[in-house]
């Protein structure tokens, strides 16, 4: 019974990412969209926190949001997805939790 957690706000502006990271269960996944993809910015504590997540937690980001922001040096564990992949993920997990 796993949850897809979805973040869309910059992790440099508020505590959504920090809170979410604490509440991720072993088989949950994290999907970054919008300004939340800035969490992948190199040389930041946020990027490091994502890299240190247990390997059982899958990490996704919306490809067009990465490209729009010029984020190319992404972690190896990151799986970039398009909108069709977004829909597929929502169906794959038991529930979604959008951190609005």
């Amino acid at each position, binding site marked *: 019974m796993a949850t897809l957690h979805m973040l869309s706000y910059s992790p440099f502006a508020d505590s959504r990412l920090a*809170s979410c990271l604490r*509440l991720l269960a072993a088989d949950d996944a994290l999907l970054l969209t919008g300004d939340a993809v800035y969490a992948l910015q190199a040389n930041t504590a946020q990027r490091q926190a994502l890299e240190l997540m247990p390997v059982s937690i899958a990490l996704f980001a919306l490809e067009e949001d990465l490209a729009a922001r010029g984020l190319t040096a992404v972690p190896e564990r990151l799986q970039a997805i398009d909108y069709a992949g977004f829909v597929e993920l929502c169906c794959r997990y*038991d*529930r979604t*939790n959008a951190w609005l």
Partner: protein
Amino acid sequence: MARSMLIITRQSPWSGPTAREALDIALAGGAFELPLGMLFLDDGVFQLTQAQQAAQLQQKDLTANLQALPMFGIDSLYAAKRSLSERGLDATKLSLLVEVLDDDALRTLINSYDHVITL
């Protein structure tokens, strides 16, 4: 059978309409007898402090409305232990009877509902 939903509320009552909107979702769902739970997380725990005076800011009192949750059949009320302690709040002096849960228990809680929404 109705599907269950956990509403995670993580804004203070004074940061905008979000706290009230989360409560409205809960009360509306309760009126339709949906199996709901509500979790107070991060600044959301500030909704539970006593002696708030909403009239000072020309606002309506959220505390009184929170008291309506059990009357609407919403008894599954939780607060995050870490959020309370980070903010210096005493779990025994809250305006609403909630179950205080640590991070491990919260992970299990979230994965026990059909739907989750975080506001």
